[in-house]
């Protein structure tokens, strides 16, 4: 199921502006990798290059290679739609589809892709909602609109929607930044469970969160405003938080940055 990601020499542009420069890293299957770094250093941009969402932005362009188990996502003839089915994404702000019920939201990926058996649909929806720790809260109101849920519930609904299509990799861009500590904890627990099945990459500004949930941590930085962001180092989370090999990482983690 889960796949290894191998990035080499990746740069991403917005028009003529280079947002990230020459990034190489490896993400192991069935692990959680956290991205940390100051605002504007290109964490979201890099994350979005991993499922070809970057090119959805007008002017978005990518150079370099992203190998998903030896298959280059940016190779010739690769269908971005197929890539996104393999590499799912959860956004910073919960974004359930407002016209759809809770059930339809979770089923949306399958329905819109058109590859499912009707009889299996409710099973998959139930399994995904259980996987996202939301089933007990919504099982009595599956036909109510998804926008009637609380923010934390909506975010878990979006996670359920993302895992319903059975991706191999799950990208999360600050999934807890709009949530209270209890919902955050629920989602962190969830990440711990999901890593049994998926490769997970999570962007966070919360150091404790990175330390709690991730196996490996990557620190990004940028030389100056307007300069492209770079990967400073990636290492086991324990090492990054106890004994990083680069001074800038230690400064950032201990709050002595800038």
């Amino acid at each position, binding site marked *: 199921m889960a796949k290894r990601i191998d990035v080499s020499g990746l740069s991403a542009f917005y028009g003529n502006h280079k947002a990230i420069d020459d990034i190489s890293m490896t993400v192991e299957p069935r692990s959680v990798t956290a991205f940390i770094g100051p605002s504007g250093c290109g964490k979201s941009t890099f994350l979005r290059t991993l499922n070809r969402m970057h090119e959805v932005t007008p002017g978005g362009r990518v150079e370099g290679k992203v190998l998903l188990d030896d298959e280059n996502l940016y190779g010739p003839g690769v269908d971005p*739609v197929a890539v996104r089915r393999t590499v799912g994404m959860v956004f910073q702000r919960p974004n359930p589809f407002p*016209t759809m019920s809770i059930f339809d939201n979770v089923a*949306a990926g399958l329905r819109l892709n058109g590859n499912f058996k009707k009889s299996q649909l409710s099973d998959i929806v139930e399994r995904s909602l259980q996987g996202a720790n939301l089933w007990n809260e919504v099982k009595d109101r599956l036909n109510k609109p998804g926008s*009637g849920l609380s923010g934390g519930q909506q975010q878990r609904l979006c996670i359920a929607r993302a895992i319903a299509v059975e991706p191999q990799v799950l990208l999360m861009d600050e999934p807890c930044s709009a949530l209270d500590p209890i919902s955050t904890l629920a989602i962190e627990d969830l990440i711990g469970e999901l890593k049994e099945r998926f490769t997970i990459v999570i962007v966070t500004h919360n150091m404790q969160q990175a330390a709690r949930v991730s196996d490996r941590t990557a620190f990004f930085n940028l030389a100056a405003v307007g300069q492209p962001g770079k990967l400073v180092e990636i290492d086991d989370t324990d090492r990054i938080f106890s004994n990083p090999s680069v001074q800038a990482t230690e400064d950032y983690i201990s709050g002595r940055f800038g």
Partner: protein
Amino acid sequence: MSHTIQDQRPARAPKSVAPSRLTRGGLPRWAPAGIAVVSIALGCGIGAAFGLQSKIQWGLISALLFVTITYVASAVVENRRQAKDRVATSVVWVCFVLAVIPLLSLIWTTVSRGMNALDGDFLSHSMNGITSFEKGGGVYHALLGTIEQVALATAIAAPVGLLTAVYLVEYGRGSLAKAVTFFVDVMTGIPSIVAGLFILTTWNLMLGFGPSGFAGSMALSILMMPVVVRSTEEMLKLVPNELREAALALGVPKWRMILKVVLPTAIGGIATGVTLAVARIAGETAPIMLLVFGTQLINGNPFEGAQSSLPLYIWEQYKVGSEASYDRAWAAALVLIAFVMILNLVARGIARWKAPKTGR
């Protein structure tokens, strides 16, 4: 145990001398209404005293008095800032009344004069065999013509306009999109008679077809299309980008994302826009005169032969100038207003029914 906790602070000496800065004297809540009554009474009094003929002058004097009295009263009782606030509010009210009076009087005139001739017979009969000067006859042929022509025009313009808007918002980049936007803008400004002449020269003169409801519909659809494009474009732009990205990130192809996520989210507003465009063309007379020609008979086939339509019927009846035909013109005007109103209500119903749902 709370009773054991005692307030250790020394009792404060009551400061009765300096009034609190947070409270202030204020006009009572009925003050605006009271001032309005007083100023209208004064306005009428002044108007009568000086022998002003026009009731409009009476009204303007009242409005002026209303604003002035409000300002003075508020400045005296309250303060300057409050006074300005109240003046702004009262100016808004005056403008509102000024805008509503013509509307109400229009509706009142149409209803009161239109009711003379409006009855079941009027709605279910044509003018067949009725000379313009006698009573009787009806509007059925014109109503039928309007409905068919408008429906055909919508059937042409709504899909084209919708797809154009989808192209502009979802796909359009670069010079082609700019050109389309420019031509839509130009089309918005086309006078209806020009649209009629265009169809007349191409469809009727060059291709040799006779007058028909369909020819009129084509001219109407030219008028309708830019309105549909514009309103749909605005509605599609209101759909948050996050929803598009959410759908794309699920591995949904772009066209399905547009069809299943973007359009359903915007459908309420789109329906309203299309209905407003329909309302705009339902009252068009010029292209109908040129292309549909007008008739006193019932012609249910919009593709063959002359038809009538409500605006054209109103114009014809009014031109005759007899008592009976005036009544018929007003009654037809009432029918036209009701037709547009019903369409509006239907659109609102659709918008409410389809709007993104909230609540638990």
